[in-house]
């Protein structure tokens, strides 16, 4: 497919702008002007629409089909959420309006959404207070680490380390490092798939600022010792960070705030159904226990006694501004609509069905693939293609073969501690028929890996391209035309 720049025709335009109704000013001095116009493409509106429509047909979205991408919670994105995000009363609101005198009164609707969503997230997670400012999950982690740093700084503690399980998302060690901490990897117990408690006990000490946990972890296994880990950490005044990436497994079943967690983030684009948008925007609100509330970012939305909402900056210990305004507002709005739609029972049902769908797939596939941790899973499970790899069919080959079967591949080669990992998260919104088709495709692939391993090398055949040369991409560094 041609690049949009190849379709450009001089003097064509995709937009008609109004004729100026004001006198032309004296031209800007040449010292301030660019020497030549930016070489943007020149296209009609239809040219542009056709180009992007063609691009879109070379993409696989959740609305296209099953997307069992482990750790990403690719659940259905309800259309009502998109509709409310387009209401002009929300989409056209200037973020500086509250800065005008009495400006908070001009944005009462938006402030109510923020206030209510914070309260709902508190109840869902058991945390004391939330900030909606973090703009993605990793941004939430960084915010959480900065809250932890502010807490220790205030207490005059010299803390240097953050403990992170070896199965954790890569963002965990990266966020801790960017906040100024050394990271230390805690091993997973190979028999249970859970964090090795004995290792935590030897590693935690006065130098430990925090321990970061994901529960259920990236293997889809719930850590029953989470409260004991919190107690161990707190003994050394280390705080517990909970990565809420996997919250979709435990809505109404477990609340981090009840288990001694000090700070956590939730991914609104996972558990709360806002769409992933080719990799963003998302939102990663951060919740805290009472000990960290004074440090939350400003501004904060507060409710006055007369029932109106306002922005408050009167938090002297606050870490300040992690985002330009109040977070990715339209993402928060979608999540709010989702929580209103599902309500208490709907959220519980979502987790139950997510866990049922995952276990159903796991049971159907455990014979054909290695299951490194053979126990009931939560919302996702990790298979290993080591058996197939002996025939030369690796996890990546299975992923590519699935594309030919009409499915998006699962997450592969993560978590890092499982060889040839295939991480599968079906989510609650998929039907049994879809899961059955997926299972059938996986079983066929497993059989083919035994009988005709050579057939994988040309997969996928049905996609616009097949196994792009990544080494060449890194070598050529062709990032633009």
């Amino acid at each position: 497919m041609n690049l949009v720049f190849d379709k450009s025709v001089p003097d064509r335009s995709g937009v008609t702008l109004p004729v100026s109704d004001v006198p032309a000013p004296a031209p800007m001095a040449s010292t301030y002007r660019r020497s030549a116009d930016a070489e943007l493409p020149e296209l009609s509106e239809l040219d542009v629409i056709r180009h992007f429509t063609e691009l879109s047909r070379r993409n696989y979205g959740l609305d296209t089909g099953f997307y069992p991408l482990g750790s990403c919670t690719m659940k259905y994105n309800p259309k009502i959420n998109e509709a409310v995000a387009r209401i002009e009363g929300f989409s056209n609101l200037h973020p500086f309006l509250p800065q005008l005198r009495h400006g908070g009164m001009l944005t009462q609707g938006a402030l109510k959404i923020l206030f209510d969503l914070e309260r709902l997230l508190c109840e869902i997670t058991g945390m004391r207070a939330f900030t909606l400012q973090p703009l993605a999950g990793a941004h939430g982690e960084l915010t959480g680490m900065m809250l932890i740093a502010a807490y220790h700084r205030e207490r005059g503690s010299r803390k240097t380390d953050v403990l992170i399980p070896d199965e954790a998302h890569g963002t965990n060690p990266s966020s801790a490092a960017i906040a100024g901490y050394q990271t230390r990897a805690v091993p997973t117990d190979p028999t249970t798939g859970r964090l090795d408690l004995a290792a935590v006990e030897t590693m935690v000490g006065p130098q430990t600022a925090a321990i970061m946990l994901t529960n259920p972890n990236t293997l889809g296994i719930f850590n029953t010792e989470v409260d004991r880990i919190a107690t161990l950490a707190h003994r050394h005044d280390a705080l517990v960070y909970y990565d809420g990436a996997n919250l979709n497994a435990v809505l109404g079943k477990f609340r981090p705030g009840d288990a001694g967690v000090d700070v956590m983030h939730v991914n609104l684009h996972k558990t709360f159904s806002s769409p992933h948008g080719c990799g963003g925007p998302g939102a990663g609100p951060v919740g805290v226990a009472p000990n960290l509330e004074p440090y939350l970012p400003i501004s904060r939305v507060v409710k006055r006694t007369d029932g109106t909402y306002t922005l408050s900056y009167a938090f002297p210990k606050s870490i300040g501004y992690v985002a330009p305004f109040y977070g990715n507002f339209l993402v928060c709005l979608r999540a709010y609509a989702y929580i209103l739609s599902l309500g208490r029972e709907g959220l519980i049902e979502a987790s139950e069905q997510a866990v049922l769908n995952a276990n159903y797939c796991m049971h159907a596939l455990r014979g054909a693939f290695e299951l490194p941790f053979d126990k009931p899973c939560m919302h996702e499970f990790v298979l290993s293609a080591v058996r197939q790899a002996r025939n030369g069919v690796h996890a990546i080959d299975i992923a590519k073969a699935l594309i030919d079967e009409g499915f998006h591949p699962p997450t592969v080669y993560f978590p890092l501690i499982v060889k040839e990992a295939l991480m599968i998260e079906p989510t609650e919104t998929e039907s049994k028929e879809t899961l059955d088709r997926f299972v059938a495709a996986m079983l066929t692939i497993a059989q083919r890996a035994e009988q005709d391993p050579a057939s994988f090398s040309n997969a996928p055949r049905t996609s616009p391209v097949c196994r792009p040369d990544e080494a060449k991409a890194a070598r050529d560094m062709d990032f633009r035309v």
Partner: protein
Amino acid sequence: MSYIANTPGQQREMLAACGVDSVARLFDAIPPHLRPKSFDLPPGRSELEVAACLAEVAARNYLQLTCFVGGGYYDHFIPAAVDAITSRSEFYTAYTPYQPEVSQGTLQAVYEYQTQICRLTGMDVANASVYDGGMAVYEACQMALHATGRSRIVLDGGVSPVYRKMLDCYTANLSIKRHEVTVSHGQTDRQRLFDALDSDTAAVILQNPNFFGVIDDHADVVRHCHERGILVVQSVYPIALGLLKTPGEIGVDIATGEGQSLGIPLAFGGPYLGFMATTRALVRRLPGRLVGRTVDRKDRQAFVLTLQAREQHIRREKATSNICTNESLCAIRAHAYLCLLGKHGLKRVAQLCHAKAHYAKERFDAIPGVSVMKASPTFNEFTVRLPADAGDVAGALVDQGIAPGLPLGRFYAGMDDYLLVAVTEKRTKTEIGRFAEALEAALTDRHRCLT
């Protein structure tokens, strides 16, 4: 409404296949003492009820205001085709393009977006986006600190106070020294800036047009810095680049900016788009995703995420940044917007903004007691000094249906009487005239009340 397809009958079949008799058994791993102490949430609602509820809440936001508020976030025209494009579910419901075969649409769109940003800024290479213009400045600082091995950042006073506050927050726990230089007549104060540089300075951060709307030619600043091994970061306003000298033309090392004005709605603060572009020399220090062009097994053109060894999912604690989810869909919006406007359209929008702001300056300058700051040239935003507290005057104008700009007292000490006014191509001569008349009337009323 829970969007669950499986019927109770199917659920029973599935449970049987798992060898358990109830869903509750699947949660046996969670012991009783770890069960929620509370889960007190409202009952679910129908789509009809949710839509009605949110329409009612939206109506509590007051929208009948003619917008002259800017401050880095502008009320620009968005062609309907932009929404049509990003409403395609193949874009908005897709995940990060880790599997290139099923993501060529995303990957090619981002590759084209990177090209558009390079052509707009005159830089060599752009990344696939960061969260917003403020994070882009922060990430640029990190790049400069690592590239130079130095530990000090010097900021021009014209850099957005929003970005500066974000930098304060992100650097609080790190050993980074910061120095800010106040502006002179709205422009970069060369003498003070040069005096502030030392051998430990990694980067100078500039903004053009700056927060006061003032434009500058920073070529001399770049030369001076480069002679001392100091990198220059310039935050730019992409619409203004339809006319203004590019960061690339003056040799800037890292260009950043807020992409909201490129077809992204104001949306009460987000989602927005941080863009970053740099030179070939610094490409390996760029944070976030990068799309590269290559070929597939059949020698067909193909696009992939590349240089991923910089990123957190490979490099973990040694990554250049912790960014994972970015603002891809906003980048696609910006790309679609730039395609629709094209070479001439973008320049035309910039000219309209400049002309209308110039007209507004003339109108305001004729109002007794109002002085428009004119010592330095501006693009589409400018500062006026009022004979009264700008917050009070703004309040009076809101009552007249005008959001007149941003009172600066909140951001700069001693600037309580200053108002920052932005004019986009959407504003008409009539609206500007009505603003000028309302401003004059408000000041006259106020004067009468006081005397």
